[in-house]
């Protein structure tokens, strides 16, 4: 098994301003961890250096007006929303992040690696066709999916497990039956969307599935959702490719969110995604980094866990240092899982209109 890791030294350099949560420090500790683990020497790992995305790939997702706006604003500096300003030079950073997603898609499409993880910054899943939001400018995931389709793999299943709802990605594919969008996210929470009733529109009706979970949700509930929702849907949809929006802000130490996933939980979730892709689409799996703001206690361990799972490494040692144990018990809400079970029952009832696997259950 070989896993591509897409990385460029410039992914460290983008910063809206130095104290912003989405800053340089985010990937620095992860890179230390990967370097110390000897990841780049490992025969199971292939490092891929990306090029910036080209105009054709970007305009397959984003409107001409928005592209022009971004390009103009990044000459002088500008502003999208309260969380998302445009520092000078942003367009080049964003193009290189999208290019990273494309490089991952291409490497898996042409078989030079079995699966790939694009360790990109800035993230993308809140960006819509016509506007950025929530630290995101270009929708790396959507640009990657269009490229995968161009490479000849028509049906793509997106699994967005960032703590925030991937509203930008959902919007881009909302009426598209070739792209199945699924998302697990904290709710109620930013950006305020991602309810179980949002299931797609027109041609795409039934091809969007949202799994909102309450604050305090743990590994157990994520495993449950894989078993009850994601895996059955994937087997019925039968995608040619699985694409993961690998947000790492569900970690129990994340300062911006309230979930309680562990590094081991992340690794096991990715392990299940790897097995699923092996069962359904000859292992074709790509992941792109989204959020994740626990720079010191979370990201080094979750990113390593995700990579270890993708490369088929032993996950026994994937965990946080013992010093963080008390933080975990503080983050867990024991009642969360019951809520997840109840929401899943309601969701299954809605999905039964579109998917046989939920009818069989009922």
């Amino acid at each position: 098994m070989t896993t591509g890791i897409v990385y460029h030294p410039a992914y460290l350099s983008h910063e809206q301003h130095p104290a912003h949560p989405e800053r340089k420090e985010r990937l620095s500790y992860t890179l230390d961890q990967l370097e110390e683990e000897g990841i780049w020497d490992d025969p199971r790992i292939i490092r891929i250096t990306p090029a910036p995305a080209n105009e054709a790939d970007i305009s397959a997702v984003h409107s001409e007006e928005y592209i022009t706006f971004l390009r103009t604003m990044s000459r002088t500096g500008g502003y999208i929303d309260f969380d998302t300003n445009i520092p000078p030079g942003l367009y080049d950073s964003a193009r290189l992040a999208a290019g990273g997603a494309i490089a991952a898609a291409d490497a898996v499409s042409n078989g030079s690696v079995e699966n790939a993880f694009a360790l990109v910054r800035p993230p993308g899943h809140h960006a819509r066709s016509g506007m950025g939001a929530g630290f995101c400018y270009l929708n790396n995931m959507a640009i990657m999916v269009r490229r995968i389709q161009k490479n000849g793999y028509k049906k793509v299943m997106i699994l967005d497990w960032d703590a925030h709802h991937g509203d930008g990605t959902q919007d881009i594919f909302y009426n598209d039956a070739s792209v199945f969008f699924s998302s697990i996210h904290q709710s109620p929470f930013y950006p305020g969307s991602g309810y179980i009733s949002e299931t797609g529109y027109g041609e795409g009706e039934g091809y969007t599935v949202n799994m909102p979970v309450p604050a305090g949700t743990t590994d157990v509930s994520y495993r449950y959702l894989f078993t009850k929702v994601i895996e059955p849907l994937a087997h019925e949809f039968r995608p040619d490719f699985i694409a993961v929006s690998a947000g790492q802000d569900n970690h129990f130490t994340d300062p911006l969110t309230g979930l309680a996933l562990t590094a081991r939980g992340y690794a096991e979730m990715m392990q299940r995604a790897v097995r699923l892709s092996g069962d359904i689409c000859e292992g074709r799996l790509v992941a792109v980094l989204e959020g994740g703001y626990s720079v010191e206690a979370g990201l080094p361990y979750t990113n390593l866990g995700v990579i270890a799972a993708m490369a088929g490494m032993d996950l026994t040692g994937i965990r946080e240092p013992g010093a963080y144990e008390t933080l975990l018990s503080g983050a867990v809400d024991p009642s969360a899982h019951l809520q997840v079970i109840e929401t899943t029952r309601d969701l299954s009832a809605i999905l039964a209109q579109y998917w046989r696997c939920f009818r069989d259950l009922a």
Partner: protein
Amino acid sequence: MLTGMDIGGTNTDVACISDDIFCVKVPNELGFAAALEHVPAKGRLAVSTSQPLNRVIAGSPLKVQSIIIPGPGLYYPGGVSGAINHRGDLVEAVDPEEVRRILEHNPADVLSISAKFSVRNPGIEEAIAEIAREYYPVEKIAVSHVLGRLNFPARIATTELNACMKETVLGISGMIREHIADFYYFKGDGGLVAPGLAHQNPGLLYNSSSAAVALGAYYLSREKDCLVIDIGGTTTDQVLLRDGKPVMERIRINDRNTLIESVAAQSLPYGGDSYIGERLEPTRIGNALAFGGAEPTLTDALNCCGHSIGDSARSLVMDPDIAYEAVRYYVSLLSDAVLSYKPKKIVGTGYLARWLIPLLSRKTGVPASLPEHGESANAVGVAVSRVSMTLWGHFDTGRRRAVINGELVPLPAWNDDDDLIAACREKVREMALRAGADPEDLKEICLVYFNSYDVVRQGYRNETIADVVMQVAPGITAGVL
């Protein structure tokens, strides 16, 4: 006076360089002291020990006990408890009783101790080494933080090798010091190092013969872009020079990546002492017939083709057809290897170069030169080298912690990146001078890597972390250029 000494497999080469170059070859069977007799009392002595160390590694009969402290992350079976994180914080404690149990139940010849992220805080390794000294003498214990850089699996592999080599290096130092108090070791990257650092990290000395030849060939020929071909007794090494410098690589030993940097060299398993039975064999039985041996070798085959090397009459017992075929086979193998580099020029060194390099040049069509004293290019390279070193620094204002080459040092004060870079430049300069560097060689200190970022907590950036790699590059000392 600069003196270089290269301890090879069968001979020790000595080169003394002042206004003249004086070279001598001493057979190892006469003992190390015989070679040291040629070392002048005045001036600087540098010693390359690649052969004894290569032997330790190649056929090491030593049993290594390796204590590994992996902490969170990738899994290592049999790991010992304790953990340091990426910032150098002790996040899980060591259990001294566990360490004692392991030391008692798995005795071995030498001990290697490696903790993940120990280069950010050597505390865990030092604590375990202190316990281990009750079980192993200090010359049999190697620790990983002295390697200074991240890459835990490569650090484990290198530390295990260091544990095996340490006693041999200390032994060689002892022998040299009986004759001469001050000397340097020649490293695999082509620089010199003070013995103290080499005792901590003997891997620095591994595989140094290619670097010695590369420096010597450049010094003697002044060819900046060429392929150096060194024909030794049992191997023929090829080293590419670009702009007067050999190409470097991080080497693998026993299928494991290490942190040992050495000159990139290709090697053919044939040389002047290669035995010829029915054909040329990649084996050494002994000297050539022409040098008092019992079996014919490639050297004897050259004599059968009309040359007169040594007591050439003794070589003529060989079947001339087999001799001719052996030489033809050798030249064609080497010519294929050489052409893969597409070199513009060949520089030949080693004892047989004079006879074989012209044949090679004719076969490949690549012009060749044979510098004077080329038969001792290795010892010349050792003599003309300079003190070099690399500083691996990690600075964390939040933790008030600075680590240089795995050792905690006082945190310097700095205002901006340029300040810190300047402080590191001064530090490496000071370290090099203390190690005996010629100040002329310190005019160029290169910044290999720099990264710094702010640590932000509760929306404020009040801490900074910086990584610096700074190097006094290996090469030829300014005094002789």
